[in-house]
């Protein structure tokens, strides 16, 4: 998937959870991605964050670092 498309999708998810009151947005974002993103998509997201995470919402970066399950 193109990096632009991936960052766009991840940021869209962040845009929802960021606005939810009283939740740990990063944890929710990570949980959502764990539930719906296939391992190779998550791997691409990991790689992108490791490479600096250009274009990603800071909450996505936090989510990846904290709670994203590394693909088997």
């Amino acid at each position, binding site marked *: 998937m193109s990096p632009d498309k991936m960052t766009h999708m991840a940021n869209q998810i962040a845009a*929802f959870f960021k606005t939810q009151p009283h939740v740990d947005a990063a944890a929710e974002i990570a949980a959502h991605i764990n539930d719906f993103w296939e391992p*190779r*998509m998550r791997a691409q997201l990991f790689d992108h964050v490791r490479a600096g995470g250009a274009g990603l919402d800071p909450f996505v970066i936090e989510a990846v670092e904290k709670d994203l399950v590394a693909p088997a």
Partner: protein
Amino acid sequence: MKDFIIPSDDRDMGTPAKTGAPVTLTVDGFQVTVPEGTSVMRAAAEIGIEVPKLCASDNLEAFGSCRLCVVEIEGRRGTPASCTTPVAEGMVVNTQTPRVKKVRKGVMELYISDHPLDCLTCSANGDCELQDMAGAVGLRDMRYTSGRNHYDASGAGTLAQGDMRARAAGTDLGNPDYIPKDDSNPYFSYDPSKCIVCNRCVRACEEVQGTFALTIEGRGFDSRVKAGNAGDDFLTSDCVSCGACVQACPTATLQEKSVVEMGTPDRSVVTTCAYCGVGCSFKAEMKGNELVRMVPYKHGKANRGHSCVKGRFAYGYAHHPDRILSPMIRDRIDEPWREVSWEEALNFAAQRLKRLQATYGRRSIGVITSSRCTNEETYLVQKLARGVFLNNNTDTCARVCHSPTGYGLGQTYGTSAGTQDFDSVEKTDVVMVIGANPTDGHPVFASRLKKRLRQGAKLIVVDPRRIDLVRSAHVEAAHHLPLRPGTNVAVVTAMAHVIVTEGLTDDAFIRARCDTESFADYMEFVSDPRHSPEAVETLTGVPAAELRAAARLYAKGGNASIYYGLGVTEHSQGSTTVIGIANLAMLTGNIGREGVGVNPLRGQNNVQGSCDMGSFPHELPGYRHVKHADARKIYEDLWGVEIDPEPGLRIPNMLDAAVDGTFKGLYCQGEDILQSDPDTKHVAAGLAAMECVIVHDLFLNETANYAHVFLPGSSFLEKDGTFTNAERRINRVRRVMAPRATYADWEVTQLLAQAMGATWTYTHPSQIMAEIAATTPSFAGVDYALLDELGSVQWPCNEAAPEGTPLMHVEGFKRGKGRFIVTEYVATDERTGPRFPLLLTTGRILSQYNVGAQTRRTANTAWHPEDLLEIHPHDAETRGIKEGDWVRLSSRSGETTLRAALTDRMSPGVVYTTFHHPDTQANVITTDYSDWATNCPEYKVTAVQISPSNGPTDWQEDYAAQAAQARRILPAAE
């Protein structure tokens, strides 16, 4: 075999059933007790006494015009019509007295005097109520000499048309009263010479269909049925070809052309329409293994005896010459197809798939299930992925329509399904239709809705386009909120703002039924003035006062229900809008009883079922996430394999992975992703990058241009199974003829699994349903015997609800307490700008279905030969575009050309088209943006520009050339 179901009680009881206090009367010496308000005719019918009738039918209110149904009632004068006379306590009725017999004979005699006596060669022979009644009243003579009449073109005046032709030669004076047949409708004819002016057709069009296309023109002897206005025929009138009038007509006046050609059927099988999510029940009326006609089934609980043009008439695709009946393979997509045996095709496919998995890994192949196939077939296809490929790469076209419904309702209420049955609309007082166009997309539901609206229920329409429901015959929306595409969340949240800040909430409901913490958060969020209708008016384009009035009506107008469609889901914030809708219903307590609720109108017939059956890559059947070991264990124990705990790829992800080179093989059943999915060029690139694409379909569809294996499919007439409609209703599909290409679709999937080494041994779809019931709690009670007995059943169907569940969340929500979720509006990144200043939104039309693969291969093209671009006259004028001009439609994804239709249904700045024809390929234009939660594509908002053009784009021409190349079939080897 129990396959041939003789419909139970199909008698016409004469007048509609009533509800009321019991009333006891005596008819011909027998006592009968019926509800107050029942007609004498119906009371008699209840005890098996049939009073002769012509103008009465139990799906129409009594009219009382023919006077054939007269009876005598003790203590009353004269001979009242039994159809219009309500019962009374202690009434004593005689249906056969010398006096009424005489009246009836006289009536019949008059009818016959202006009716040809060619019963033997009439298309309704054997199926004509006039004929039956002439027999029933014992008419033996006709004392009128032939005079003025309507049936005899020559004016010679004879009752038999053969005679008439013989006598007419040379002396044809012409008959000024003769009206020729109207054959303009492709499916039925209107022969005025046989009309007895009983008015049933006119009433059916009004009361059942709600179109008001017919009137009785002229008076007395001159009166005849007329479609539309002066100069109209059936085709040019408002008639939508639903067939209700044909069904109602007691004579051959309105008659299916198929019956005219083939004669009357000799048996019938009850089955389910394979088009839309209403899921209408039909009787497939057969003669040998030929289908003579499809007649809506009176006891069908979704349609209650009504139908639309698609289910009723558009089944001819099943015998279209384009159907591919032999399996085909090719090594590369630039080669022509080779016809081969089933065995060779299946082995070729299995070898390739196995090789791909060996080379590129277990997760390099996947499946797409179809919302047009049965539950049993869908279950098997996902089982192929999970149990044979050993991955979760399974998805369904529901991804591209209702996946946000699953997410949104799942998060708020705890189930991914509509809350009501269709009957519920009869109890509703306020209906809000959001992003749906029921008169075109869900016609039979629309007819039932319109009926309720004519009884006084109020309507709110939220749609960028002035859909027909906003104003049509005897229906007018109280409020139409013409929002800018993409601002659904802002509008729904503003409605909630009004309800909360004006104190219109149902506090008792919220306290008892909803999660209080989430409610407090939501209150705080939604009462912020930035969500007020005034604050969002410039964004949404909806006048604040109108929005406020609509919100008040929804909250306080009595039982309020919401029906929504793809105009809600197919957006970047599709899931958020579904959540917003769920919030509205909870705020106002409109959930958990008849007449209220949240109802997704599903596009294709089995969208609900395909989601239920575990088509999604993260969910096992019954919506259980694959991460849960206990859910996996059920299947692991049964299938003897290990289920992958990781979610699989969704359709757009599959295509992305294909372009990246990690996804190589696809088995695609009954779907045409190249035409139906957004951003056609990207889909084509993904397909072209795969090494084994297996298309399993009736026709060489667009996706097959990129396929290596083609497996012929079976139509719904050729297989057994079940469909689940938008009300969660599981309906039987029954095989009425043998599969034309040898195998039903479920058998083909099983053969492919076997070729890959599986040991499946199903011999009938009922065994597949048994496995589904054994493994899925909400289906635990479903089996074919129960479906045969009850006709249909709505899930959950299990020990707690042995006969199914018409209404959900009655006592409490599925998840316990209803959960409010904050719905912040986030603008889509698809924005208009100088290059693309207009917004395109898409939809569908009544006579065509989805990508049109079926309907384009029927006479339905009489109504919709091509896709048109609807554009506001103002936008057209500034671009120099006139009605019917070719225009170029371009977006950042691509461009195409089609013809313009100028209409003020659209607001300026918004254009609209349908996607039924592959030559137009509206999806070349749509982008890869999608719903944040589910990746459901954003079909409904694309920034576009429009300019005059003189013909197809280069891309369209290249596409057509590639398609022609890819569709070549080598003659079979000797």
